[in-house]
């Protein structure tokens, strides 16, 4: 069984936010409006965080694109009282919008703040939305799904043609959109896949690895003189 994962090369990331916009378009992530954004309620499944370099303060910035890290031991699913969020067998942490009671315990438990809440009804059905991704109602939590709907589509296609999914058939919107090819997506259980090779790079590290959450989004640090 596949184990979906992602490698993000910080050396290549330019902070252009193409991944953020591609994600919003692909997953019908609502624009909450200026007033709500000022209150700190922006929803951004993929969010580019900026960090100033400790040695060269205010001179060098580091961009960290942060999707849901799809932990193998997710602190968020542990605390959900109603099975509205769970890790599926292929390692994707899912969120059931129709089940969620909006207690926001998962948001409080996630050490990466990858979960977002619908404080109001932020969107209605309108033209231009992706029909493959359901809209979220008021009062529920949402987050990055590794574009799970694309996996379903690819799997149906492969099933109809009586074959397995080929590498590259299932890719996330952010990886597709990255102009610097900083985001590589694929099957971590296949040692030959590009994502697996990159994940074994000496530059590879995980966010807050010491917490034991086992994230499946792996970062590559800037190389010598990079950044």
């Amino acid at each position, binding site marked *: 069984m596949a184990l979906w994962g992602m490698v993000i090369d910080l050396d290549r990331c330019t902070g252009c936010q193409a991944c953020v916009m591609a994600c919003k378009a692909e997953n019908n992530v609502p624009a909450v409006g200026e007033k709500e954004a000022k209150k700190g309620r922006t929803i951004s499944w993929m969010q580019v965080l900026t960090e100033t370099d400790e040695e060269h303060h205010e001179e060098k910035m580091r961009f960290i694109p942060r999707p849901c890290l799809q932990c193998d031991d997710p602190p968020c699913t542990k605390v959900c009282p109603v099975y509205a969020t769970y890790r599926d067998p292929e390692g994707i942490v899912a969120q059931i919008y129709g089940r969620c009671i909006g207690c926001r315990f998962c948001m409080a438990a996630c050490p990466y*703040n990858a979960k977002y809440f619908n404080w109001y009804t932020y969107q209605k059905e309108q033209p231009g939305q992706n029909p493959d991704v359901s809209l979220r109602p008021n009062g529920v939590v949402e987050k990055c799904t590794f574009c799970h709907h694309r996996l379903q589509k690819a799997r149906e296609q492969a099933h109809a043609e009586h074959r397995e999914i080929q590498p590259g058939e299932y890719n996330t919107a952010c990886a597709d959109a990255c102009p610097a090819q900083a985001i590589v997506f694929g099957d971590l259980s296949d040692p030959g896949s590009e994502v697996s090779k990159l994940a074994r790079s000496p530059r590879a590290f995980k966010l807050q690895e010491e917490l034991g959450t086992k994230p499946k989004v792996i970062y590559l640090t800037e190389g010598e003189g990079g950044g």
Partner: protein
Amino acid sequence: MVDHKDAHEDILLAPIAHTGPGFYWTVAGLSVFILWGAIAYLVQFYYGLGVTGLMQPVSWGFYVTNFVFFIGISHAGTLISAILRLSRAEWRRPITRMAEVITAMVLFIGAGQILVDLGRPDRILNVILHGRYQSPLLWDATSISAYLTASLTYLYLPMIPDIAILRDRLGKWKLFYSVLALGWTGTEAQQRVLNRAIAIMCVIVIPVAISVHSVVSFVFSMTLQPMWHSTIFGPYFVVGAIFSGIAALIVAMIIFRKTYGLEPYLKPVHFRYLGQLLLVMSLLWFYFTFAEYLTGYYGAEPEEMKVFWAKFSGPFWPYFWAMVLCNLFIPLACLVRLGRHTVGKVLAASLAIIVGMWLERFIIVIPTLSFPRLPFPHTVYTPTWVEMGEFAGSLALFALFYLLFTKVFPIISIWEIREGREEGVKEVEERIKSYLPDEIKGTA
């Protein structure tokens, strides 16, 4: 003889028999706040949680703070009452009922906070239909419902003989009291069964009460978040709960003592004993707080320190130091010497502690969420009129419940006072004699 007994009971029955204008004015005053809370909740129900000040990353705020606070207050009653009964403290007699009522009433309010906090209250049944026992929220639901059931039983049982008195002596609501009195006539067999039932409930209710605030703390400590993920949280929350609970009990006692003229029953000695208990709890609370913060500080783990400094000298310093002032210094100043002005001093300390313990809950919930591990832009949580209204409404609703209870049932146990007068004195004398070495016969 009968007349003499009646005179004692008259004071305790007076609030039920007669209702003055003061009652209606109080109800009207409380209703204003309850209305504010109700409007606030309706607005929130219609528009969503967006009408609160909550946001990313402070996704829990006033509601969760109030939840922990109210559930904490509930520890006054049943727990204190059960401990005093089990230890045969004779001075408990006029206090137990008041304490038990607090628990029963405030538990409804506390559990309600979680309902108010939900983004989808319409889906609350999912907790039963799809309940996931690995989640500390389910532990809360279980523990609190067990506590509510036990507390209501424990409140009701010792009330049966009093309800029978109301049935026989009071002209009104005859049917209501007859049903609730369960045919009590005060025979020796009935009394024996009742005493046994009360004793069993005393023993059951203590572990249940302790479990309640332990699992409330587990909601925080089971996560990995800095200054939440602490093994000390269970007992720390229980101590804080009993601490704030006793303070609330004292305030309620002083209010009803004044309004219903219960001075002959609630004497300064009762307040002195409760004040001493409060002082012990204050020191215990400080000990836990000190241990908790010193451990975090000494380890100096960077994520912990971010939250630590935010409380100590950062944006949350006014709340943190107000908490220390209210929970430690004011109680110390008021309670160490209780010789004169006992009631006033104990009242001042109790009011400070109620404020301080609310601040403590606030300072636990908000700062941790305000400082995420990853470099997010800094945000400040400010509650809106909706959250304020809901809090004010909850407090008023609790006061109203309590007030209405005192208009239907005697707030001081009539039969237990009578029992103290008739049997307690003798029993204590015999008990003390049994502690002493037996008299040796035949020596001069």
